[in-house]
């Protein structure tokens, strides 16, 4: 064991404007649970511009030690512009500190970063976990038990993670409940990651950012999504759904059948291989409810299914339903909205 953090549980924390990202805080809750179970110290690592500010904020979450790097402004403060760099930094941390576990939220960035760190150090990585604990009957210093998502969450996998140092990403939604109360706040000790030395790997680098199209609501962010599936019948009838979405201040999403048929662009696809949405209401029209689609819309607070088939799989996931043909029901809803002079809610 060498250096500080040996045997510790370290959380990779993403941040923006000096605040830790909510997903990382959720991962932190899971990490804390593991650290407590192992009796191990809990630490964090943050990279890039604003890392020190975020690290300080982490004190409120009970962290005593935060490793940081590249807190500079300008090019040096944007390690993610060269995707190999963050992972390399974490790999160095793994080698020098030999923590028990390195944990991150299963965001795109977190996943990629940990995967590269794991690759460089030839350590095992369990992705998209919902829980981690000591494995029954096993030495907790050498084996952990995890539950992780398969099929985007439609199936759960119980797995064992062997090794003195292991990596995990924590799935969206995990750690939300059963969070262990944080110990009293204090300013964390901030340790700058030692430089590994040598030339950083900048072979792959960001060369351009293309902002989202102005106006319009992004599917991932929309409060209301009106979804269309096979039942819509063809590209032309989507005008109905667009009209309804506009009246509700929302946007149109589609199932994989629709994009596969070329009726609508993939950017509108809701599902395991498309976009995960989390609106207040998802109105699923003519969508049967394949499990990969459910993965994409399970984040919705409520689902209203409009379908002729009362036994369609989506009905088991929907909060509300209208049994009928969308080609009759949707125009009726539009007409009723117009009749009442309804406008999108604030």
């Amino acid at each position, binding site marked *: 064991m060498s250096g500080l953090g040996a045997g510790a549980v370290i959380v990779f924390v993403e941040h923006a404007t000096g605040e830790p990202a909510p997903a990382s805080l959720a991962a932190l809750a899971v990490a804390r649970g593991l650290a407590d179970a192992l009796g191990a110290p809990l630490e964090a690592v943050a990279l890039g511009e604003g890392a020190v500010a975020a690290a300080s904020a982490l004190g409120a979450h009970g962290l005593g030690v935060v490793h940081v790097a590249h807190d500079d402004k300008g090019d040096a403060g944007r390690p993610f512009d060269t995707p190999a760099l963050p992972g390399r930094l974490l790999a160095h941390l793994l080698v020098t500190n030999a923590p028990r576990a390195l944990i991150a939220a299963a965001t795109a960035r977190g996943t990629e970063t940990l995967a590269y760190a794991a690759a460089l150090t030839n350590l095992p990585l369990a992705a998209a976990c919902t829980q981690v604990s000591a494995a029954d009957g096993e030495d907790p210093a050498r084996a952990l038990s995890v539950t992780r998502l398969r099929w985007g969450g439609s199936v759960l996998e119980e797995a064992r993670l062997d090794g003195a140092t292991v990596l995990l990403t924590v799935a969206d939604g995990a750690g939300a409940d059963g969070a262990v109360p944080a110990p009293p706040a204090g300013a964390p000790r901030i340790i700058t990651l030692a430089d590994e030395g040598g030339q950083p790997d900048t072979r792959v680098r960001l060369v351009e950012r293309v902002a989202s199209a102005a106006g319009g609501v992004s599917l991932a962010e929309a409060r209301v999504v009106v979804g269309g599936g096979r039942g819509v019948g063809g590209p032309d009838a989507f005008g109905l759904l667009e009209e309804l979405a506009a009246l509700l201040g929302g946007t149109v999403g589609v199932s994989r059948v629709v994009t596969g048929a070329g009726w609508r662009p993939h950017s509108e696809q809701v599902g395991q291989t498309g976009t995960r949405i989390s609106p207040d209401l998802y109105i699923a029209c003519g969508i049967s409810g394949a499990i990969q689609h459910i993965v994409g819309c399970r984040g919705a607070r409520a689902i209203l299914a409009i379908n*002729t*088939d*009362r*036994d*369609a*799989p989506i009905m088991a996931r929907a909060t509300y339903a209208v049994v009928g043909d969308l080609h009759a029901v949707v125009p009726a809803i539009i007409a009723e909205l117009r009749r009442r002079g309804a406008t999108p809610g604030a």
Partner: protein
Amino acid sequence: MADLPSRARAIIIGGGIMGSALVHHLALQGWSDLVLVDQGPFPNTGGSTGHSSAMVWLPEASRVLTAASVDSVRQYKELGVHTTVGGLDLGRTPERIADYRRRIGFIRTWGDFQAALLSPAEIRALVPYLDDSVLLGGLYLPSTGVVDAIRAGTLMREAATAAGALQAFPLTEVLGIDVDQDRVTGIRTDRGAIRSDVVILCGGVWGPKLAAMAGASVPFTPGIQQLVSVGPIAAFANLPGEIDFPIIRDSDPRIYARRVGGDMEVGSAGHRPMLWDADRIPSLAEATLTPTELPFTADDFDASLESALELFPSLFDDERAGIRYAINGLSSMSADGLPIIGEQPEVRGLWSANRVDIKMAPAVARTLATWLVRGMPETALQPFDLARFLPHERETSYVKARATEMWTRMYERLHPARELSSARDQRHSPVHDRLVALGAQLGEQAGWEIPKWYAANEPLLDVYGSRVLPRSHEWDARWWSPIANAEHLALRDGAGIEDLSSQAMFEVTGPAAAAWLDGLSVSAIGGAEGAAGGAEGAAGGAEGAAGGAAAGPRRAVRTWLLDPAGGVVDDVLVVRVEAARLLVLGSPASEARLAQWLTRHLPTDGTVSLHNATGAWAALGAWGGHARELVAAATGLDVGEPAFPRGGVWDAGLGGAAVLVVRTDRLGGPGWELLLRADDGVRAWDALVAAGGPLGGVPVGSIATATTVRLEAGLRSRSLDYVGGYGLVEAGVAGPVRESPFVGRDALLAQVAAGPAALLCTLGVDDQRGPDGEARFMQGGEPVTTRDDAILVDARGRRSFVTSAGSAPTLGRHLLTAYLPVEHARVGAPLAVQYFGMPYPVTVLAVGSDPVVEPSPRTRA
């Protein structure tokens, strides 16, 4: 959704095309309080109807199927769901083209259908995308079309609902069928129970599972038929509508292709047979598409893809035309490829309608509804009756074996004498080993292995030389041998010994047995007192006459069983063994029908007992020139008249076994049938053969007895001559109608009063030489025309066709029988018959049941 009613007039399980058409017709015929349930949603319940290509070829492959398709198409057109696009059956070989000529002949006898043989150039003009370089021609059937079956079912259900006759409940799963003392009492579903004493299973591939819920079985199996959809097809990009040019069927690789919008759908019956089990059908929730759209097994379809590419290179040799839908489609397959309809024998009130294609469903529904509402099946449904299956035909192994073979033979050029090779040797005669030792060439009827001729008789060919009328053309000679004609001649010159042990045999016993049978029979059987039949004069039919003084109540009577409409149910021999014990003998193929008919009419008061004794007896026939001497020598009976009149029944001994000797004259001249216990069969056979030796007696097969000798004698074929709604009068066998009541008497009287519009005649072919001089031999089904090729049509619109055909070695001619319009039914009338597209001159030799060859003086007893 509304609650399930607690009871219903009838419950129909299954909302595919069959169930939907059935509720429509039941409502039309006046039933209400109908309930239809289906586990799936409307309109596509997830069964075979949903993925079917819904093609309706017109005409179809047979008279019966064509009639059903005509009716169905008419109904679909009224619903506005039928599109006529035409159908093209391609021909890649000369044999296939020749077969199309043959089919065109049959089609001429079924009605005024359009059918034309096209050249490759004409095909190309009709379907520009087809590469005609692989073709020799094709059969064009312009009346063929496609149907929107889902829409049709919806409209039919809606019509019944709107009439207040039907409540339909989708998404309702049947969990059980209740039966009490062999009667159905209702069903249980996941939404409640419904009581009814009529439950009709229209559950498609779920049929066996549903029937099993009631302790019943339906003999069919689910099976796979693959299909794919390829697109977008560049050439279809700007075409309107769903389909315009004809459906294509390529019978050699066994694929079909039809346009569906921007795609080309290709289906195959050419892949390996893939039968399926009911317990491997996914539930609606488990299925990715529907339970009858199973995952595609690409390897099995590759050969079909190659054929499709070969036919449509301009459409398919395009990297952008992708296989974008592909399934192993599930549908129902029966052992004989025909629908299965009727009341389950195990459970009264439980009916099944299975293996009914989209092309048949409306017609079948109308007929089944009539059957249910009025209690009498139209004869049109008889080939589809569930009751047609014998016990061995209901075994799963049999169904699978035959369904497999039928699959591999789909679209084959169907020979009228075709024998199947799977599931053979189901039933053997007691003397089977003797027959095999004589080189019997066995054909199958009702599971029995029956000799058609005997290889051991080959030396007879030298005896008779060219009189055996050899056949040189491969098609005409299939399942035939000149030995059969040699047996025929040897029978006339000497005697013929026939094994009849496969015949259907029923024992009827009880104090009312004779009276009961008398009430079902055209000819008098005689009441309890005995010779009453004789006192009432001649029984119906020339063969039934008791002749001189009958020897008491023991008598054999040739008679017919009629249905109330006057249609012939069967042609049987009734042997009165004792006052209260009779035997009913029919052909092997009649067993199932006779069993059903007799059982159905059995009185419930226990005064009559019926026992199916088929196979429990051995039966031998002695026919021909020296039959009398043969029987006398073998049994020691005095067989001369008047001791041995026609219809007489005597006890005797044969080879040490007790035998019942019956003079039936079944083949025209004097003839005897010997009935014994099965165990004694071999002994009796040996004795008869030994006795026959010095008399020129030879074993004879069924071609000689059931075809050639019969034709020469002007006798009717039980299976071939009573079809098409022709009754006894037109068959030329109706005599004076007796006074006592019997089923069908009124109808028969009406037929007599109305007189015949056609008469069954025997015709001889004048010149058999075909286009290249080879002698051709018609097989049956061919159209009969004037010498100017005008098809003969009688006053009731029925077209003349050959009902049976065979050699007449005695005459040296080929004989045909056909119902001719009365104006042509005269001896000497010059006519023609069309065979493989060529006309052959024929002349009427006999009208009605007059023999063509008189029995020779020495054979008249």
